[in-house]
Each structure stands twice: as C-alpha cells, then as structure tokens.
C-alpha cells in the first residue's frame, strides 16, 4: 500500500469559523454607522476612516517587516482597529490625527505586546485617548462646515452637560454633531444585532453596561422619572458604540462567564459617575480603558467551577 495519509491528533473536523471571519463580521457591523456618518458629514469623514484603516494596515505590515515576522494583516484585525479609530474621529479632523492615532494603536498598544490578542488595552480606544490628550483642540471640534441640518456645533453630550434641552429623537437617529460613527444609535444597533445574531459578541457585557449605566444615571442625577434625559444619556457620548463595539473586544474583556457580568456592571457604574461628575465628557472611552486594566483581576476571581467539582 503506497497511500499517503495525513496524521494529526483529534479532533479531525473543525468549525468553519476563523479569526478572519470574525473580524470581517465586525467590519460589516460597523458599515451602517460609517455610511450614516458619511451621509451626514460628507467626503472628508469618509476619507478620515479610510486613512485610519490604511495607516493601521501599513503600521502592522511595517512592524512585522522590521521584526522579521510573518505578516498578520490578513486576519483583518488591524482593519477593525483602524475602522473603530476612524469612526471615533470628529468629521472635520485634519488627516494627520487619525494617522498618528492608528500608528500609536497598532505599534505601541498592539504589536509591542505581542500582536493580536496579547494587548491589555483596546488598541483603537487607546489610540483615540492618545489623540484626545495630544490634540484636544482638533478632537473636540465638532463644527461641521458641510452638514446643513445640524443646528449647532455642540454634541448632545455637551448639551446634556450644560443642561440645554434638545430633541432626543435626533440623538437616537443621529441628526446631531459628534464623531463620524457614534451619532446614529439606530445604525449602531443594527450592527450590534448583526453581531449578536452571528454570535460574534456576547450580549451580557453591552446590555449590562447600558442597563447599569441608565440605572446609575437615574439615581445619581435625581431625575429618575425624566425618561427623555436618561434616553439622551444612553444615546450620547458614544455609549452605544462603546458598549457594543469596544467593551466586547475579546482580548480586553473577561473570558469567564461571570466575569463578563461583573465587567459590564462595573463599566456602567464607572461611566455614569464619570459622566455626571467628571469634567471631560469622554467617560466611555476612559472607563473602558480603565475596565481593561481590571480584566485579569476580574478573571482570577470568577473562574468557573469545573463539572462535578461543585461544593468542594
């Protein structure tokens, strides 16, 4: 017999899922928000996101070349990072900002720590916060010269903080100023639903995050009966984007089932406190980063009990 047979250890069949397909799903899920942002803010917004993605791809390629490692861009995770970062930029931002953000996110936060899955902070978020600190002026300028129906340059979050009344429906559907991808709650929820149906994300983290956040806001602000106020808080300041697309990042959220519960609740509490009492409006980004740092601790106290080992 001269047949040549492949020999591997079991199992001999695998699910068709792959890292690349997961990343592709995340990209698809962000397309509605991207399209809405481009429709609202125009061509420059479209270019900002594309530039962020290209910068991310080039940074990863370059890093791998310098370090003489096989290129890893085909797992598409750098595209996801670039896209999240781009969608979190103000629409009129100069193009060097997303480039700097992407380079920082990929090289410093992701690749230096060992690449995909090894980073302890969400790269896109860290990149965004880096830009927020370094280029505060550009990052907080939401004046749009192109949009026609946006009635002021203040984001809903700014209005909330200054106590000005505004139309809540506009925040839900995205007729407001803001970063390119965060403004339309509806578009983001469509994407989130897609991810949930494809079982890419576990809904425990985002749902508990938003629910805890809403409850805390209601209690802490003393305006528990003001539904408009609470809904406005939920749909502003990038909370929907953060909850579904950033807090669910696999590498920087707990892997244990109960850990996910704690993490979601913790983010909700932290974000609401920071949102109400903090000076900066950026509670979502900073609090998710803070949550990232607590993940190893949360995991270590929530290890699941093995089957048949209960009560021992």
């Amino acid at each position, binding site marked *: *017999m001269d*047949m*040549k*047979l*492949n*020999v*591997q*250890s*079991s*199992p*001999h*069949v*695998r*699910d068709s*899922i*792959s*890292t*690349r*397909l*997961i990343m592709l799903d995340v990209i698809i899920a962000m397309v509605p928000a991207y399209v809405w942002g481009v429709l609202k803010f125009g061509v420059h917004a479209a270019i900002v996101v594309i530039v962020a993605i290209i910068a991310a791809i080039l940074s990863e390629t370059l890093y791998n070349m310098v370090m003489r490692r096989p290129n*890893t861009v085909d*797992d598409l*995770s750098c595209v996801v990072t670039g896209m999240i970062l781009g969608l979190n930029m103000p629409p009129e931002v100069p193009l060097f900002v997303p480039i700097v953000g992407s380079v920082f996110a990929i090289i410093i936060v992701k690749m230096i720590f*060992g*690449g*995909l*899955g*090894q980073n302890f902070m969400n790269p896109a978020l860290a990149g965004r916060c880096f830009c927020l600190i370094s280029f505060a002026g550009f990052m907080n300028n939401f004046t749009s010269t192109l949009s026609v129906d946006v009635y002021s340059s203040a984001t809903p979050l700014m209005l909330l903080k200054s106590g000005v009344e505004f139309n809540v429906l506009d925040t839900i559907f995205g007729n407001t100023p803001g970063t390119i991808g965060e403004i339309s709650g509806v578009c983001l929820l469509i994407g989130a639903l897609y991810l949930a149906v494809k079982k890419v994300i*576990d809904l425990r983290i985002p749902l508990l995050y938003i629910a805890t956040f809403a409850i805390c806001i209601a209690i802490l602000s003393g305006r528990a009966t003001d539904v408009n106020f609470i809904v406005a808080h939920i749909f502003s300041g990038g909370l929907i984007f953060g909850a579904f697309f950033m807090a669910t990042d*696999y*590498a920087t*959220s707990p*892997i*244990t*089932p109960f850990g996910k519960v704690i993490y979601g609740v913790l983010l909700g509490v932290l974000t609401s406190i920071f949102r109400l009492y903090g000076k900066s409006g950026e509670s979502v980004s900073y609090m998710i980063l803070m949550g990232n740092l607590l993940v190893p601790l949360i995991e270590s106290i929530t*290890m*699941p*009990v*093995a*089957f*048949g*080992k*209960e009560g021992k």
Partner: protein
Amino acid sequence: MYTFRHGVHPDEKKELAKDKPIKVVKAGKTLVYPLQQHIGAKAKPVVKVGDQVLVGQIIGEADGMISANVLSSVSGRVTAIEERLVVGGQKVESIIVENDEKYDAIEGFGVERELNDMSKDDIIKAVKDAGIVGLGGASFPTHVKLTPKDPEKIDYVLVNGAECEPYLTSDYRLMLEETEMLIKGLRAILKVFPNAKGIICVEDNKKDAYDKITNSCVGIDNVTTALMKTKYPQGGERQLIYAVTGRKINVSKLPADAGVVVDNVDTVVSVGYAVCKSIPLLRRIMTLSGDAYNETANLNVRFGISYKEVIEAAGGFKADPEKMISGGPMMGLPVFSLDMPVSRNSSALLAFAKDPLSNMKETNCINCGRCVKACPINLVPTMMYKAAKSGDFEKYIKLNGPECITCGSCSYVCPAKKPLTPYFSYMKFAVRGYLNSKKEKEAKK
C-alpha cells in the same frame, strides 16, 4: 428532553450511512488478534504456534483484576505469536491465526439459555468468558463494571445510544436491527443489579430507533427509554449520566460511585448474545463512511480481519483518501496504514478524499471565549492551553486541567485553530508523571 450544558453541534453527516443495513464481512485467510484490545493488563496467550483453535476459543486469557479475554473469531491454526502494529501506533503482541474456513466452534457455542434460569454469577461469568469490553471506544472490561463494590447501590443502568460522533451510524443500525437483543442484554445486566432501573438513552436525531425501542419496552417494568437532545458530546459518560439522572461525577469518581453503570449499545447487545445465546464477542459493528469510499456501509466484522480486507469487502475507494480515521472525527485516531486488524475499539473507519484540516491556519488566540462556551466540563481551555504550552503543571492542575475529557469541543470551535485538545491529551499523561516525581521528591526530603 434530556441534555447537558455547553457542547457543540458539528455537522452530523449521518445521512451518508444511516440507511445501510448491517452486512456481514467474510473473513480472509489470516487473522490478527492483539492481546491488548482493552483498558487494563494485557491478556496472556494460552495457545502455542501450531495449535488448532476453534471459533470462540479463548486464545488470550485475562491477566489480573482489570483485563479481558481475547478469543479466536475463526477456526484454524496458530501460525505465529508476534508483535503487530495497532491503530494507536504501538506494537502489541498478537496471535496470528490462519483461517481454515470451516468455522468449527467450541462446545456449547450458540446454545440458547433462559435468562430466568441464570444466577447473577452465571451472567458475570458468561460476560467475562465472552471477552466483552465496552465497545463505545474506551474498551473497559465489562465484567469489571458488573462487579462494583456494592451492586445493591446501583440504581441506574444506562445504555448509551447517544452516538454523538458525526458520521457514525453503527449503534443506530444495531438499535433498529437488534432491538430485541438489546433489551435482552439490558435485562441480563439488570439481574446483576437488583435495585437498578434500565434506561436506554437515544439522541433525538435517531427518533425512529427511539420509538422502536420504546414500543418494545412496553410491559417490561424495569426498562424505559430516554430521548436526549442531539449535541456533542452527549455520549460522554459524565454528560450522559448528568443529562439523564442529574448526578455529576468528576475525574476521581467512577459512574458506580454515583450509583450508575453505563454501557454502550453494541456492548449490551453483545451481553445479550453471550448470556442468552452463548455466542461470545467475536465481532463488532463498524461504520464505513466518508467521501473517499465507493459505497458507505455498516458492517458486521469479525475481529482480526485487516482494515484493507474490510474496505475491499465494502467496495473499495473511489478516490485515494488523504485522511482516514479509526472511530469518529471528534475523538477517533488517525489511521496511517491499512495493514491493521479490526479490534474492539474500531467503531468506524472514515476515509476522506480531502483532509478538511490541510489548509487550516493557526493564528493568535483572541480570547474570544468560544472554547469556554463549548467545554462540557466548564473549564477555560485557552488558559489551560497556555499553562500546558509553558509547562506550568501547577497552574494546569489549578485550572482543573486533569478534569478534561479530551472530547475535542474546544478545538472544534476555536477560530484561531489552536491545537487545544492535543495538548490536553498529552497533559493527561504528563501531569501523572509530574505528580509522581513530585511525590518522590517529597519522600526523599
């Protein structure tokens, strides 16, 4: 419907062979009987080169507490006793018999016996003499299972008809074609355990077999059936016990500690034949499936026939296979040569023209947690993998790694295609060695 937590749903692929009735394969000229076809001590050869042997004759005798007899499945002459390659890749001392094609059997072979006339000890002796071992894959000697410390304490005898591995249909065919013998075998086992209730457990993708058995059980007061949700690894011993009885056992316990005895369908049918018809375990039912075969089949194969002869009898290959598996695709062993005998753990022989894993690309772990959701033992496979890879035994033990049943569910769902299960299979042995050497070191102090 009964089930367990977590688990996976691989493509069933049972439609390929489920409608093929069991066909008997004719034995060839030379038969090979490895003396180790079971868990436990190797059997001791009791024949010499040149001896004439009969069908059903014991040629290797159980040696020690946990061991099983090896029987000749044909009549003929012993031509050699030498080491032969078996599926696991080891070389095992084997008895080689040249078939005289007369099929002369030992005295008393095939004599009908009435279950009511047999005592508990008669049944255990019949099972032991017949060389019956668990035919679900682990090959644990069945007579040992029938003699726990306290038989009175056993209150469930579960017949494992889950057949949760993809492609496999041999148990399904048996449940349909040998329903009566299955129930007879179960009643024989129940005679050993006076306080036990027998439950035949079937997954709901084999509803017709379940219905047939349920109808045949009507009027037998200590035998019932249980329909289980189709999910892998529903046929795992711990998962099956939990699903049907709600009891949980871990690696340090035997089913008997939870008052349960679990036996596979083919095992119970074999007990039925051994006890009621005096026909010892000489054959097993095998599924031949996969896209490389001309014809898929469910076969009744005498032990000792080579894989090559089995494949020829079934109609051969239509394409050269790139991958062959002995057993199911989730836990089976890779086959690297067809010059090996069918033995007690050869539940299937799968052949694929293309290896589904050949273009698989490993990437970094992204911590997605799919393995955690898949693990039927509630472990965190990715952390175990990292501990195993870095040789951190203490961490691995702390993560409950030794509880792993190597069912393959974590590897199956892993999007990064990490070799999780292979590492855990290796760690099963490595941890034992580590603990032994640790004990030695401590003893020296």
